[in-house]
């Protein structure tokens, strides 16, 4: 039996038994939604529908309804795309990288973090598809035998790399998530009574794939999880590296930098963890998971945010230094313009939200407070959106020819689509919170005896 050090804080609070864990995790699925859930759900659906309207308007009329112009030909769509992809990074990091490092605290949060990943990547995927203008031809990005003569994809292009990267990331994450979900769906299936809720029983029977928990199955389960984690780890790092290459392989000053891949990956982890915190701090209250998602989990995540935030700050400063050191005027101007040009406020928002504010996590009191963490996580979410806006718009709006210098302002359609994806994201997440086992209960049970607070106390007496 594995024993854990006494000084390590417990990960499961309260006097819980295996049955208590089952009951606590199944409760949101079995019970009825409360008032707050309905209010949030209706609001999200309204936002989503508004977004759908704006998307339909874009597709029906053309990209001209956005705020883009000849100089700033990429703006909100790609900003939102990168923002959502970044948010989609924490989930797989938590479930894959932390599994390889044997971090047990991941078990209480990996399910929701990965749900967030999948829903976030879905939002991200919408933007390139809408931007195509003719989304029904979106399948042209895949190398499918076709009748257009010799017209095939260009495998030298980072845009095609990211088609492959995102498709792989979305599908492999979903598979990883579902493999872990099967035993938990089985737990819910076995609790449902055929008489009281026959439809639900049928649904969970279907979802659980007939899982029965045999010893051989568990042995395979563990190996498959480990190998999938090993595969997903380089995948996480590759996806955002490839997204950054959409910019880095271009020749636009401000984009053409070799620092982009690691800098984007760190930024993605940074923003992903912030979004996980925003969601989990609300969720632990709404579905009463206080014993499982504890302040210790939040503190661990805050330490990662502090670390990645500091590295992102280092990257910002390195960028500035390299611009000056390159001796190229265009490069130097691009960065000077970012910080002091007409978009200085976006630069200030980015610097303060991403670099300065997370430094507050050095203070233990702030790091271990739910309210402070929630507020700071919102700042990070905003800051990371501005980071992408700064990189994209300020690099474009003053290009090589001063006569074509211009400003960008989003149209109501730009804003509507962005709000729509936020609505879509929360709609999916709220539905998930009511129908899925939101904590990987089978895994959690396996650490109850080593990390549960009562068991820890007993074993050290």
């Amino acid at each position, binding site marked *: 039996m594995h024993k854990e050090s006494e000084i390590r804080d417990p990960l499961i609070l309260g006097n819980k038994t295996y049955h208590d864990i089952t009951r606590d995790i199944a409760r949101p699925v079995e019970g009825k939604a409360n008032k707050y859930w309905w209010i949030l759900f209706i609001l999200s659906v309204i936002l989503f529908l508004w977004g759908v309207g704006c998307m339909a308007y874009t597709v029906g009329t053309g990209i001209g309804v956005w705020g883009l112009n000849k100089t700033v030909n990429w703006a909100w769509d790609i900003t939102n795309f990168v923002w959502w992809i970044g948010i989609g990074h924490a989930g797989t990091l938590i479930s894959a990288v932390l599994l390889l490092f044997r971090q047990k605290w991941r078990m209480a949060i990996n399910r929701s973090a990965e749900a967030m990943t999948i829903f976030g990547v879905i939002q991200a995927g919408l933007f390139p598809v809408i931007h195509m203008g003719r989304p029904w031809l979106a399948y042209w990005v895949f190398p499918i035998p076709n009748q257009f003569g010799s017209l095939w994809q260009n495998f030298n292009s980072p845009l095609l790399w990211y088609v492959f990267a995102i498709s792989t990331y979305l599908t492999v994450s979903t598979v990883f998530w579902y493999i872990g979900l099967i035993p938990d769906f089985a*737990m819910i299936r076995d609790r449902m009574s055929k008489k009281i809720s026959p439809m639900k029983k049928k649904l969970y029977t279907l979802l659980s794939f007939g899982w029965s928990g045999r*010893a051989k199955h568990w042995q395979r389960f563990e190996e498959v999880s480990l190998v999938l984690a090993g595969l997903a780890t380089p995948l996480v790092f590759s996806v955002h590296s490839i997204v950054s290459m959409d910019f880095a392989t271009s020749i636009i000053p401000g984009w053409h930098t070799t620092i982009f891949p690691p800098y984007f990956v760190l930024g993605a982890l940074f923003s992903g963890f912030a979004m996980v915190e925003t969601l989990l701090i609300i969720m632990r209250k709404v579905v009463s998971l206080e014993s499982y998602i504890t302040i210790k989990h939040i503190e661990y995540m805050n330490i990662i945010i502090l670390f990645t935030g500091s590295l992102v700050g280092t990257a910002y400063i390195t960028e500035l230094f390299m611009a000056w050191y390159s001796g190229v005027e265009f490069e130097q101007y691009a960065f000077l313009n970012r910080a002091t040009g007409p978009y200085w406020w976006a630069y200030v928002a980015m610097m303060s939200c991403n670099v300065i504010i997370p430094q507050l996590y050095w203070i233990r009191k702030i790091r271990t407070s739910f309210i402070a963490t929630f507020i700071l996580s919102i700042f990070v979410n905003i800051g990371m959106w501005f980071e992408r806006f700064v990189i994209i718009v300020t690099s474009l709006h003053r290009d090589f020819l001063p006569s074509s210098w211009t400003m960008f302002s989003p149209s109501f359609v730009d804003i509507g689509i962005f709000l729509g994806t936020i609505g879509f994201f929360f709609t999916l997440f709220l539905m998930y919170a009511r129908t899925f086992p939101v904590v990987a209960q089978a895994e959690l049970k396996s650490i109850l005896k080593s990390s549960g607070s009562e068991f820890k106390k007993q074993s050290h007496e």
Partner: protein
Amino acid sequence: MSKKTLYAIFDDEEVLLKSVLELRSKDIEILEVYSPFPVHGLDHALGLKETRMAITAFIYGCLGLTFGGLLIYYIMISGVGKSWPMNIGGKPNFSFYQNMPSFVPIMFECTVLFAGHLMALTYLFRNRLYPGAKTKSPDPRTTDDKFLMELEIEGSDLEIKKLLTSTGASEINEKKIENE
């Protein structure tokens, strides 16, 4: 003699593990163990063979790498690439080797795509898990907090029942197997 199946239920994984070892040392065959979560060391205690899932993933990964490489080779260099050569950034369009660096991302993604999905499918196939399958567990509590050991015995069961109770089984149920 009539055959029957015994279902011994345990409340704790450590007790179960000790009981499994005790029974196996007495050469009693254990048909199956059902548990709500992976119990570490149970596969060794039951004498299960190492799973070969990781090996399949490696094979599928190699397959994916080959597929990705051949796909790119066909589209960019040999097949379509030859009939419609494109000058992309001045890169030589007749040489796979010299173009390779920019093909690495997609070859890598294909490797992961194949390894991940095909291993997951193999896992579902080997475990006979598919939408609509019925659970084989004899007791629904095995996904909650109970551990179940399944034994098949012929003849007198008193001895084994005694052994099971003394090693910590909290409950023993039985089912007669009809003689064919």
